[in-house]
């Protein structure tokens, strides 16, 4: 009733302003305008502008300047930073490391998350407690997580001591000492930290599946393996889209966990791009580090757009 009441004068108002669309859509727009006037967007818009839009644009601009700790002025220098960065092999090595890291984080986070969600799907008390426990790492500081794992995995650390106890001899392996496998282990740590979040999203996906569908499958004689892979997993498509996209793209911006566990070592094998950006910033080369973060932004966009497009199309096909 209040809608009808509000629509009356609004229609007239629109007409007076020269609106000539059909009355129905006119009144709808007017109601929307009345209930959600554009100025409600101003606070959020202002925050977005100041803290997101302006810094992003500045990131684009500063990348093409000679901004550094050593000069009192800033002037444009074209593609200078770009050229000097590409001549330096470290940038490409670190970009590759970043991609490897992001791939493994997405893999581990989603695998762990999905397994947890499937096992903890039923709403029993034990499962509720377990869900909370597995969600705790998500709330922990990434640095704390990194330092804890660093202590666990160092030579003669907690893991070695446990293994020594069972093996009956001293095992002294520096788990983060391999230039090949450290990146995988660090990715697993990051995946472990965020698995609780993936679990939560997969759980909510599982909860939206219609009981009738599952019951029908059961009556048709499908076993639980088939039910999962033929019905549940495809219907989790929206959750997969969200989880894969956020874990892959989010970990490309990783920094803290890697810094705390390996600081980019051994031998630079776990130096993801943001560590290099930070190292360069510390040298006072601000515009070079800005250029690097611009490059990272571009790489993320190049991956994000087709990935999300593909995952959405997959959803549309299934659902």
């Amino acid at each position, binding site marked *: 009733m209040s809608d009808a009441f509000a629509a009356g004068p609004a229609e007239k108002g629109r007409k007076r302003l020269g609106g000539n669309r059909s009355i129905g859509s006119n009144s709808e727009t007017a109601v929307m305008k*009345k209930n959600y006037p554009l100025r409600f*967007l*101003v606070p959020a818009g202002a925050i977005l502008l100041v803290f997101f839009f302006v810094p992003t644009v500045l990131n684009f*601009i500063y990348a093409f300047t000679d901004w*550094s*700790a050593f000069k*009192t002025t800033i002037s444009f220098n074209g593609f200078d930073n770009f050229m000097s960065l590409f001549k330096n092999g470290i940038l490409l090595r670190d970009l590759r490391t970043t991609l490897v890291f992001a791939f493994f984080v997405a893999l581990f986070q989603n695998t762990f998350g999905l397994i947890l969600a499937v096992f903890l799907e039923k709403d029993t008390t034990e499962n509720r407690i377990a869900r909370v426990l597995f969600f705790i790492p998500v709330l922990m500081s990434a640095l704390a997580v990194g330092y804890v794992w660093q202590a666990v995995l160092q*030579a003669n650390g907690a893991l070695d001591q446990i293994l020594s106890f069972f093996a009956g001899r001293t095992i002294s392996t520096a788990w983060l000492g391999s230039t090949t496998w450290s990146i995988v282990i660090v990715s697993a740590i990051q995946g472990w930290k965020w698995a609780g979040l993936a679990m939560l999203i997969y759980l909510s996906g599982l909860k939206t599946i219609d009981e009738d569908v599952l019951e029908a499958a059961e009556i048709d004689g499908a076993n639980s393996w088939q039910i999962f892979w033929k019905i549940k997993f495809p219907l989790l498509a929206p959750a997969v889209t969200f989880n894969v996209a956020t874990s892959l793209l989010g970990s490309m911006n990783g920094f803290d966990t890697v810094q705390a566990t390996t600081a980019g070592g051994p031998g630079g094998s776990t130096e993801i791009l943001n560590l290099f950006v930070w190292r360069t*910033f510390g*040298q006072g080369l601000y515009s070079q580090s800005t250029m690097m973060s611009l490059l990272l932004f571009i790489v993320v966009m190049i991956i994000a757009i087709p990935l999300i497009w593909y995952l959405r199309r997959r959803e549309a096909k299934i659902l």
Partner: protein
Amino acid sequence: MKLIQWKIDSSRKSVRAVAGLVIAAGLCLGTLAGCGNPAASSDDTDTKASGYWPEASAKLDSVTLKFWSSPQANKIPVQVIKDFQKATGAKVDLVTIPEVYENNAQTKITTGDTPDLAFWQPTRSMMTGLVAQGKLQKLDNAPFEKNYKKGIDDEAGLYKNSRYAIMVSAPSTMGVYYNKDVFKAAGLEAVPKNWNEFVAAAQKIKDANIPGVDSPLFEMGGSQWGTQWAVQVQLAEAAQGGLWDRVNQGKDKFTGKDIMAAITNYQDLFKKGLYNADAGSAKDTAQEKALWDGKTGMIFGNASQFLAISALAGNDKSALDKKIGYFPVSKDGNYTTIIPDGSNGVVAFKSGDSKREAASRQFLNFWMTDGYKAFIKQQNIISVLKNVDSPNTVPQASLDAAQSIQHSVGSMQLQALANPDLYVNLASMVNGTMTPEQVAQTTQDQFAQVAKAQGVKGF
């Protein structure tokens, strides 16, 4: 109806306001090229003016100073802060900035967060950026300046002949700390007198197969920073001959003969199997413990590593003197390479508040006069002042390191115009992910970038 009209108008207004903001931001960005660096100013302070250096213990009620420190150094000023607060009524807040201190502090300073005082590596390469941005107070003509011992403040703390950092302790030196028990067991009677003798001594320890000694040398590739000592000590004679001046002008390079040879010699030590098996991942703490426990014979070290070893020994002078010794080594002789570290120097920032700036200088004056005796006694370190005696509990290795400063050369940090991440690249070499040539090239590239940013000719 009027109300509706007003709403539509006002929503248009907000659209216009947002558009206005976007345009304003765009205009501001567009004129950026003409803008100055927001973090910069120039300096013509007269440090000789009367009252520039306030009396050490003058009253300073209701003044609060912020002092930044790295996690390694944050215990050092506790005593002097306490004494200063008691003597003057001022308050000094000690703030620890997390690792890597220099990078994090630099980031904070660039974004506008500055302290009043801070520990800072008093070297040319590390002060350049702060001075160029006009962040630091000039500290020339301090009343205690004349009291410094020889060699302490000749090079350290200066930038283009102006003082920006006060030396509160003897600059750290790069040299070799060795375990006397291991030397005895290996039959080594005298300390090596040059690089070749050093390598021979390491080989002798290895060949002696002493029970309990895992490796003659020990590297901390996991912590990275110590990897540069072995390379830098070899450059002492070249540095004496103007190596870093040539590098600064682009006439010599990290890929040049001298530095390349030093890197390759360092790698040879690994090829000969003289280092610990986990050299690539071991941490500094493991290295210090290995020397103290006699699991290794020698480590390249600076003062901070010896401080950590002293802590392992419970700061027991007699135990330390019996077990740990120090000798400087260079390519052809026994030069010590000086590397003032982040706890040797203190800088004072321009805060814009003249009262706090003066109070900061007063704090430094207090530290180096009324407060100095208590400071070095509590820290158990060598005095850098002629008029204050060192405590008699300072370990012999520290005394030897300080003594060696009289026959010393400045390090890369002190003489080069930039401090590139040589140690990071060397750690990569220790881990086998870079060749010596790649270490040299990567370091040179970064050095050239910083030199170019500084506007140096030839880059």
